[in-house]
């Protein structure tokens, strides 16, 4: 093992030559962190394929990371760091299997390991295609429907995003111990349920893909419209979600909804910088300076939407929502928005994935296309909807429509109510500002 490591370190970068220099160690640690981000998912996926358990695979990968942190600052980063990490993890895996084999009679459920040990495990047999399948298997396993949504999100960011528990906790504004527990429990649940590490077959493929897409979109939305906290947007989460979506689109290129979700995220992300003012305040879609929209992301989003369309069949809910985003993206000014088309697209979403939130969005579009009275009629029909009882955007939308109809006092009350329902500080400020504007408009009118 020693000799193979030495060999792997041949041609190592110069970092180690300044051995003892604190800066050199810091450089090496930053390089290791970056390498970990690049390699960890493939490493965990490759190990999980052989071991059959992503919990153990992740621990083995972590052990390899620890070994790298110990050795690379002094010896230099190996020329092929991914191979080094895999080699190290492999040795740990053999040790583990050997140890487990001695416990064989005690724990029959780990027979798989023993079986593999007897067959002679070949970690190196993977081809490029296998690596793709391994990653896909990892994604499907981390997003297994047996796990709660929160658990799926945390595990996915951990094993596929290469994020630390601390980073995930920071992103979701929850204590580190909460995320750590979520991940531990998720791994245990998968082990206890004997969830196989694999890409699901045809029967299950669609429902399992839906679970993966849901997780990625949840991550994106927590970045795009944080449910709580001080920030109006958290771009880092959007970027993580986009990265996962882009990877998935490469791994599963024939699934139209994968491209639909990527299109939706690219188009929404194109507005991230326009969505926020100089002091962090929110700027809503119709008030945004469209020259600040990211043309590159729009172009990528439209291309992804075309991919979804080209793959045939009726558009799914994500692709339809992407098509709605595309309507906005194509309009040079807010006034040029094709609202009737947006209403028609929302009709499509409502048919495929009916939900009161979709109905509310559709009501906004109807209000823009056919006037505030028509919009308000639809919103009023949603007022008693139990699932929207504490949804702040219902009174916000209603306030907006009332304000357009000159019913300022009612509008003010709705904005106040909306402000009291959101946990996001920036959004609350915006809604209170709107309430104050209504008062001013009433007094001046």
């Amino acid at each position, binding site marked *: 093992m020693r000799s193979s490591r030495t060999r792997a370190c041949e041609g190592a970068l110069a970092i180690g030559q300044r051995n003892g220099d604190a800066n050199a160690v810091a450089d090496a640690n*930053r*390089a290791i*962190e*970056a*390498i970990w*981000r*690049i390699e960890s998912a493939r490493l965990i996926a490759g190990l999980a394929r052989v071991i059959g358990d992503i919990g153990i695979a992740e621990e083995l990968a972590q052990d390899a990371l620890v070994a790298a942190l110990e050795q690379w600052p002094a010896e230099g980063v190996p020329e092929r*760091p991914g191979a080094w990490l895999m080699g190290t993890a492999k040795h740990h895996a053999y040790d583990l299997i050997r140890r487990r084999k001695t416990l064989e009679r005690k724990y029959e459920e780990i027979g798989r390991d023993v079986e593999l040990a007897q067959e002679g495990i070949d970690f190196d047999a993977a081809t490029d295609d296998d690596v*793709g399948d391994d990653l896909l298997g990892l994604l499907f396993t981390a997003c297994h429907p047996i796990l709660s949504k929160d658990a799926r999100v945390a595990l996915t960011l951990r094993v596929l995003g290469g994020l630390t528990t601390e980073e995930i906790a920071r992103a979701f504004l929850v204590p580190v111990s909460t995320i750590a527990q979520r991940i531990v429990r998720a791994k245990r649940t998968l082990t206890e349920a004997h969830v196989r590490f694999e890409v699901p077959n045809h029967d299950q493929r669609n429902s399992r893909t839906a679970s993966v897409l849901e997780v990625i979109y949840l991550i994106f939305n927590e970045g795009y419209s944080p449910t709580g906290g001080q920030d109006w*947007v958290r*771009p880092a989460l959007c*970027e993580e979600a*986009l*990265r*996962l*979506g*882009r*990877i998935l689109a*490469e*791994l599963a290129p024939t699934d139209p909804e994968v491209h639909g979700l990527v299109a939706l995220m690219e188009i929404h992300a194109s507005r*991230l*910088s326009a969505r*926020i*003012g*100089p002091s*962090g305040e929110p700027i809503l879609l119709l008030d945004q300076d469209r020259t*600040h929209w990211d043309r*590159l992301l729009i172009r*990528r989003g439209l291309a992804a939407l075309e991919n979804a369309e080209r793959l045939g069949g009726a558009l799914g809910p994500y692709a339809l929502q992407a098509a709605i985003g595309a309507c906005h993206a194509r309009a040079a000014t807010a006034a040029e928005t094709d609202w009737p088309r947006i209403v028609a697209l929302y009709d499509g979403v409502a048919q495929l994935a009916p939900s009161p939130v979709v109905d509310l969005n559709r009501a906004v579009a109807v209000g823009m296309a056919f006037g505030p009275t028509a919009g308000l009629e639809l919103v009023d029909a949603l007022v008693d909807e139990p699932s929207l009882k504490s949804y702040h955007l219902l009174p916000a939308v209603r306030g907006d429509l009332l304000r357009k109809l000159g019913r300022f006092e009612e509008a003010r009350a709705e904005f106040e109510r909306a402000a009291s329902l959101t946990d996001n500080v920036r959004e609350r400020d915006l809604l209170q500002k709107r309430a104050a504007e209504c008062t001013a408009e009433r007094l001046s009118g």
Partner: protein
Amino acid sequence: MRVLIIAKEGIPGEAATPPTPEAMAAYQKFNEELVKAGVVLEAGRLQPSSQGKRVRFDGNKRTVIDGPFAETKELVAGYWLWQVRSMDEALEWLKRAPYDGGTFEVREVFAYEGM
């Protein structure tokens, strides 16, 4: 973060000799790996500077200068736009590129103005 990778020419007669099929295959494999990792946003290879133009500004005056341009070391041969999490990640990816010569510059693109 978004970074622009600028491939500097560094070779007199820029891109006069087309890359060998082996070099192309190695490059394609690397590029594919980057795309599969969700890193590449955009990429492009530039025509030689003999077909390029420069516009020099001097007060109100604009002068158009025809290529080729002499400072071969500073000439740009191609570019990548990458989405990465850190400059270190960009460097780790770039070090894996199958090139045996030339210089590549990595520059962070300003993003999310106002934040």
